[in-house]
């Protein structure tokens, strides 16, 4: 991993965010909502509206408005919410923290469920177990989050009464309750990743099991457990990083729906509220922060992959 490569990668992130900011600003500008009217209400006098438009810069050309918005954004000023009259930035970043917790929990569940499922299917290739794993992965990519969430709510929360249905508890408040509230949403978000990861791990494991070095390790007399953990698992995990990085987009999209259904005050819920109330600064900030999260996670995954890949090459 050369520094030139790293620089190129970081420049890509900057370019990505630039395009996203233009796109988001452009799309929200077409919104048939007049910021002055939404701030002052329908009954405001034309004079008051005109002076507020002047103050907000709504009479400036679009590119100038974009420039003002972008330069404020770069100084960490995401604007003021038209709904709550509060600064958008702090609210969005608090929400982002909760969403990242949800995403992190989903990732942990993915690794706990998806990796063993894929290995199990590979080891029992062609049996009912393999068929079952294949079915799980087909269902996983075929059920939208709102369906999975609703079905989980009916079975786990409503019928079995095992876990609370909705709501959010901060971990600082009550760790146990916080985790209990997080399980169903995280499980919902993880479904698509479990499907992709288990499929990938299965095919990788099959490849590795047929490789010469695993045969050599077996012939050397290593116990099969050691072979599985030291050689097979390790090689099967590598592509998992790529798959997870590719899935970040789905996960962020899934988080929007899941937070809405489970009433988690994360960035997805903020965005839905912003979109339904046509709160332009919040929509813009939320969308840019989400895209930035995507770009950063992908870059980190790329760098992680490059690091691991290199280590393997030198071993």
């Amino acid at each position, binding site marked *: 991993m050369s520094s030139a490569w790293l620089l190129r990668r970081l420049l890509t992130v900057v370019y*990505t965010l630039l395009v996203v900011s233009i796109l988001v600003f452009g799309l929200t500008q077409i919104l048939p909502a007049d910021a002055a009217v939404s701030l002052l209400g329908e009954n405001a006098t034309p004079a008051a509206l005109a002076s507020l438009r002047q103050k907000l810069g709504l009479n400036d050309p679009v590119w100038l408005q974009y420039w003002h918005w972008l330069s404020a954004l770069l100084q960490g000023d995401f604007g003021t919410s038209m709904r709550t009259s509060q600064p958008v930035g702090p609210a969005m970043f608090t929400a982002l923290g909760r969403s990242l917790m949800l995403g992190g929990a989903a990732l942990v569940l993915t690794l706990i469920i998806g990796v063993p499922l894929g290995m199990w299917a590979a080891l029992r290739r062609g049996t009912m177990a393999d068929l079952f794993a294949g079915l799980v992965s087909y*269902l996983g990519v075929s059920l*939208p989050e709102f369906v999975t969430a609703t079905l989980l709510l009916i079975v786990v929360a409503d019928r079995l009464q095992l876990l609370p249905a909705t709501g959010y508890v901060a971990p600082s408040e009550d760790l146990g309750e916080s985790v209990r509230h997080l399980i169903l949403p995280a499980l919902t978000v993880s479904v698509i990743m479990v499907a992709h990861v288990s499929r990938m791990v299965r095919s990788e494991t099959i490849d590795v099991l047929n490789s010469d070095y695993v045969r050599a390790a077996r012939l050397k007399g290593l116990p099969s457990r050691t072979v599985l953990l030291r050689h097979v698992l390790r090689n099967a995990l590598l592509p998992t990083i790529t798959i997870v990085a590719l899935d970040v987009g789905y996960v962020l999209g899934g988080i929007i729906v899941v937070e809405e259904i489970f009433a988690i005050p994360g960035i997805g819920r903020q965005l839905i509220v912003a979109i339904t109330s046509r709160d332009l600064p919040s929509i813009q900030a939320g969308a840019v922060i989400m895209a930035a999260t995507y770009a950063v996670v992908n870059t980190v995954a790329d760098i992680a992959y490059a690091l691991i890949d290199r280590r393997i090459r030198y071993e």
Partner: protein
Amino acid sequence: MNDAVHRLVHTPQGVLGLVLLAVLALACLLGGVLAPYPPEAMDFTARFVAPGARHWFGADQLGRDVLSRLLMGARATVPLAVLATFAGATVGACIGTLSAYLGGRWDEAITRTIDAVMAIPHLLLALILVSTLGKGSANAALAIGISVAPSLARVTRSVALAARQQDYVKAAIARGEGGAWIVLREMLPNVAAPVIIEATIRVAFAVMLFATLSFLGLGAQPPASEWGLMISEARRYMHQAPWVLVAPALAIAMTAICFNLLGDGLRDALNPRDER
């Protein structure tokens, strides 16, 4: 093409996918005829009737027959998702092929821009578009088409890059053909197979995205019997009548599974080299 269909029916995924597709097509074409009740007919004596002889899939909070609504819902969901996906896929394929044809700096710029657009999650892009254009099925379909295009462009570009190096493209350039002709007549037909595979799998996403938008109140509007909307309405009564909710959930899953199977089957049928 006949050869591909022949090979498709020899893959297990292909057969199952085609069977499900036939069921869906039947529901879309003959849903109104097959439905045992008019989908919007309310029968207050049948409120929350459990699945049985009278109502195979039960009845909802207004006594509407769930099976009839599902059959009508197929028409409200599936053709729109297919159309939106293939329209978006065509646009994406053209962009991807053009990018590969131009090469060099143009290719770099187009690819980076596509990657940047893809940093906005599909659902979020669709949400912003629908809130800009206004709610409703047509705008939801447009939003889905737009969010499909970038990923298809990326897939197409990688295939078209290989096609660009083929002799027939070089020959066309040497003959002095115009850029549009080369892109549309020489390269595009030769990247069709992977594009069709990818687009087929994307239909599954489109169905889910469309249902999600309707679920969030931005796609199909009541009293339409769109599946996502049905789930959204049935959620309030899920304690009393879970079947009202489970039936459309299964319909969405079945449709998505159908297109995923077809896509996988086509991949096996069209790329015999790629053994997985």
